[in-house]
């Protein structure tokens, strides 16, 4: 067997050499033969002649020897490829149509696969045991609802490490965007704060130096050592091996480089590649972060010991969490602290990929859906190409019949046709890869929020996928024309002559067409649902103005030393004045909470005579100055907003959101009522006003409870720190035109390496609308593509049948059929396409409805308006595609048809 392969391969690849050898061998033979004859006394010329005659044709021997060498199989493929190539060159229009159609289908799928794979399937690179590695979630019941968390305080993580037994190891990590580098060359980068155990989860060896160890990651303050990410090492240090021992400014502190992570190492992150990894304990500036439970910022992963079931892991985590919950209760020493059982505290060991776990966001689910949509587009593309190939197979009927009659075996014919479709699919696949290369990074940015692009073509998993898709496509598109060719009846095809006398309705072609129509309807319905969802999302009343409001905030971390409280207060006042005096600015207010960004909470308010306020919901604290409500555009419904008189020393006042007020005092007037808030000792606030509800945490769901305190009064009561510089700025016109000016002006006031960022509320809200925007965009794009493909398919089929039936039409007209009858004949075929498509597509859409509905925003998946719209669209498209051929049909000359008879 091996000898056989070796021989064949040598024959194939060292072809020239082998042929040369054969020539030498044959010449030698003839010489010997001549010599023999001459020895017998035959004259030289005669001897040579006899030798040659005895030998026969040298060429034939060469051919036979070639066959014997067993390379004919390769030769046939070569021949088939050349045949296919010639066929494609002779019909460039057909070829371009097929390759483009396939390229769109394959490209869309390859690009989507790259995303869905990373989101849902591909374990983090280098991860040693993906199946046994879990992300830890903790759940409890609060306010009657289950609260699920995957970000924990350091203390909680330490508790879990201490109290769990079934895990090999646990690790905690957090991503932070901080300024990296010294002041003028600093830029914001994502860094990973990770526990020393983090690296043990991976089979990764550092490119240089080492990872940090347990001894360097001990609270309260770990060592300032850093492991650089490979990409950051390359860009910032030119991949210099001397980087070890150098220092890098990360946030407020200097870190010493001790190692470089290997190329492609991204830890547990599916988002941006971290630039560097530092010990978790080196990051916090909050005192006692390792003793209290106030700051939930760490994600935790855990590796199950061999032989431990997932259920056992859940149970172990639950026990540890309940213990930790009790410990937290002792710490806060609040009488009303519920027991772990009361809040039914539980731990869960879920898949390490967030998108696979319970916290999968809408983007991940929509990405999975879009993958499905991409597959549908591919199916439509395949149906279209199959249809084109089928049309060509029918046109080549006579050629194929002739070749069969001439003795070409059917298997040979099948091989040839398959070669052709594989060849076309391969071209489509290559073009598709090019499309994916361009579209992939764009999709990844929008779906995953990843900045850096990773090339598609160099990723083996994506390449394998693309190859598999291409092969499937080749088979799918090849089958229809193949079955046609194999069934070919030689006699009838040849007898039919050049003029295809009989009209044969091709059931396969019609079926493919109806299939396309149905799938198009499904995609168009999806497009309609998502567009309506997007409109609904956009029309959600947020309770504040978005367009004219900018958010500016200073980052003081870079200062190096913490500012003293009076200095920070003075800085905030200065910045407020600078912002207020900038051109185009109407008003400015300091704020504590920012919608969809950061929320301040002081626990549950206390109201005399109401003791179940913690069951009502969670309460968000906002502060603002006298201009707050005017700046953000939240309306005051009753009472008043803040004024300049609400200063320190004046009576303490608060404004409540409408839902909060009516939840606490249902049916009563809240104005003038008094209440206390956590964190301000026993300070008693009087309700001065009620503001309209707003959406700041989630764009849908239950009403949020917000309460407002005057900035001055809040600052005076707050013990430890001054307000940080964080303002809403209301401008004339749209905020995005002003952010840069604001940022520059304020930056001039910032001390040291601290800096100002400016953004708009619109930008903070955009991610909330993103899933629907994306769904709408992609469904519309894919739906339009599908419809266009189906329309082209319909058009080509109708044109073809009209051409085939022109004789029949002529005879009918001669027998008295009117123009209307003829048009009806042709257009009827288009309408059948539309009706079957609408019927089948509607059924499919209704069946899929329950699965899509959770992804929609206040939108029924059975919206009759959308279904009707899609039906009308399809009918119009069908009419448009049949109109031209129908007109052509009416111009058939009856006399010519009769003469041809």
């Amino acid at each position, binding site marked *: 067997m091996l000898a056989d392969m070796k021989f064949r391969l040598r024959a194939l690849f060292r072809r020239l050499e082998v042929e040369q*050898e*054969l020539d*030498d061998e044959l010449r*030698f033979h003839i010489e*010997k033969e001549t010599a023999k004859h001459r020895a017998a006394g035959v004259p030289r010329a005669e001897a040579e002649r006899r030798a040659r005659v*005895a030998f026969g044709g040298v060429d034939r021997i060469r051919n036979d*020897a070639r066959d*014997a*060498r067993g390379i004919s199989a390769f030769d046939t493929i070569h021949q088939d490829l050349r045949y296919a190539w010639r066929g494609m060159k002779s019909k460039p229009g057909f070829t371009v149509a097929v390759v483009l159609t396939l390229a769109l289908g394959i490209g869309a799928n390859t690009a989507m696969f790259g995303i869905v794979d990373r989101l849902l399937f591909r374990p983090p690179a280098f991860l040693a045991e993906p199946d046994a590695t879990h992300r830890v979630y903790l759940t409890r019941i609060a306010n009657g609802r289950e609260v699920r968390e995957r970000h924990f305080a350091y203390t909680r993580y330490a508790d879990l490490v201490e109290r769990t037994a079934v895990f090999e190891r646990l690790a905690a990590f957090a991503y932070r965007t901080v300024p990296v580098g010294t002041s003028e060359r600093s830029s914001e980068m994502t860094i990973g704060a990770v526990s020393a155990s983090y690296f043990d989860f991976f089979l990764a060896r550092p490119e240089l130096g080492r990872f940090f160890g347990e001894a360097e990651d001990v609270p309260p303050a770990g060592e300032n050592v850093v492991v650089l990410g490979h990409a950051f090492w390359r860009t910032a240090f030119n991949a210099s091996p001397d980087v070890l021992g150098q220092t890098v400014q990360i946030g407020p502190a200097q870190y010493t480089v001790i190692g470089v992570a290997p190329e492609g190492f991204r830890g547990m992150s599916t988002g941006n590649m971290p630039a560097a990894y530092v010990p978790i304990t080196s990051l916090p500036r909050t005192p006692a972060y390792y003793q209290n439970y106030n700051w939930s910022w760490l994600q935790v992963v855990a590796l199950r010991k061999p032989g431990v079931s997932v259920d056992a892991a859940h149970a172990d985590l639950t026990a540890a969490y309940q213990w930790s919950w009790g410990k937290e209760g002792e710490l806060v020493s609040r009488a009303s602290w519920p027991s772990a059982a009361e809040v039914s505290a539980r731990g869960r060991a879920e898949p390490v990929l967030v998108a696979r776990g319970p916290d999968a966001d809408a983007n991940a689910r929509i990405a999975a859906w879009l993958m499905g949509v991409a597959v549908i587009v591919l199916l439509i593309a395949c149906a279209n190409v199959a249809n084109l190939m089928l049309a060509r197979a029918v046109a080549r009927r006579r050629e194929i019949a002739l070749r069969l009659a001439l003795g070409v075996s059917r298997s040979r014919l099948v091989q040839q046709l398959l070669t052709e479709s594989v060849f076309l699919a391969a071209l489509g696949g290559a073009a598709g890869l090019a499309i994916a290369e361009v579209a992939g990074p764009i999709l990844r940015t929008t779906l995953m929020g990843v900045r850096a692009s990773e090339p598609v073509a160099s990723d083996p998993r994506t390449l394998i996928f693309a190859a598999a898709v291409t092969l499937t496509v080749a088979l799918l598109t090849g089958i229809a024309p193949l079955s046609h060719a194999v069934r070919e009846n030689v006699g009838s095809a040849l007898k039919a002559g050049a003029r295809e006398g009989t009209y044969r309705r091709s059931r396969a072609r019609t079926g493919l067409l109806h299939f396309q129509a149905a799938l198009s309807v499904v995609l168009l319905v999806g497009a309609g649902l998502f567009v309506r969802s997007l409109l609904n999302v956009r029309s959600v009343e947020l309770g504040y103005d978005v367009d004219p409001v900018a958010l500016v905030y200073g980052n003081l971390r870079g200062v190096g030393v913490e500012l003293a409280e009076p200095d920070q207060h003075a800085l905030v006042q200065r910045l407020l004045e600078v912002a207020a005096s900038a051109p185009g600015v109407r008003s400015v207010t300091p704020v504590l909470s920012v919608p969809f960004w950061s929320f301040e909470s002081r626990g549950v308010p206390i109201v005399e005579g109401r003791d179940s306020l913690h069951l009502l919901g969670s309460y968000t604290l906002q502060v603002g100055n006298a201009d707050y409500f005017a700046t953000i555009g939240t309306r005051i419904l009753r009472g008043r907003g803040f004024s300049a008189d609400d200063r320190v020393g004046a009576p303490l006042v608060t404004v409540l959101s409408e839902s909060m007020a009516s939840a606490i005092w249902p049916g009563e007037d809240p104005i003038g009522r008094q209440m206390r808030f956590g964190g301000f000792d026993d300070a008693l606030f009087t309700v001065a006003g009620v503001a309209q509800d707003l959406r700041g945490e989630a764009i849908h769901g239950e009403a949020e409870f917000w309460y407002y305190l005057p900035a001055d009064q809040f600052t005076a009561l707050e013990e430890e720190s001054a307000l940080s510089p964080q303002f809403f700025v209301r401008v004339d016109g749209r905020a995005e035109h002003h952010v840069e000016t604001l940022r520059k002006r304020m930056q001039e006031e910032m001390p040291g390496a601290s800096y100002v960022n400016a953004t708009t509320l619109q930008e903070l809200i955009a991610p909330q609308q993103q899933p629907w925007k994306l769904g709408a965009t992609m469904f519309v794009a894919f739906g339009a593509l599908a419809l266009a493909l189906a329309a082209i398919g319909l058009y080509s089929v109708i044109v073809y049948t009209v051409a085939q039936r022109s004789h029949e039409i002529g005879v009918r007209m001669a027998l008295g059929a009117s123009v209307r009858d003829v048009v009806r004949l042709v257009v009827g075929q288009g309408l059948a396409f539309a009706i079957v498509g609408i019927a089948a597509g509607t059924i499919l859409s209704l069946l899929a409805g329950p699965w899509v509905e959770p992804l929609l925003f206040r939108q029924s998946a059975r919206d009759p308006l959308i279904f009707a719209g899609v039906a009308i669209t399809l009918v119009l498209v069908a009419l448009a595609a049949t109109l031209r051929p129908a007109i052509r049909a009416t111009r058939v000359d009856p006399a010519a048809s009769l003469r041809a008879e």
Partner: protein
Amino acid sequence: MTDRVDLPQGTLDLLILKALSLGPQHGWAVSERIQQVSRDTLQIPQGSLYPALHRLERRGWIVAEWGASENNRRAKFYELTRAGAKQLAAETATWDKLTAAVSLVLRMT
């Protein structure tokens, strides 16, 4: 000229293997030897000889090597492999059985 007999189908391979079992030979010598030994009764169709040699080589029954012929010309020599020897034995046995059977039938009275 003596009477010549066309080779029955499939016997060419057997004859080549047999000829080569006596030692490495180049193609011409193989055909010459078969012709001589059969006293010119068997004439190797020369057009089939080389394809047959290449086929046998592909199957691994013989190997080829370039060497010098008796008068120092470059020639391709074929040599029987172990697998070829086995094959020869098997085919010879089959052939013997066949001819014995055929002659039995032909001598039927």
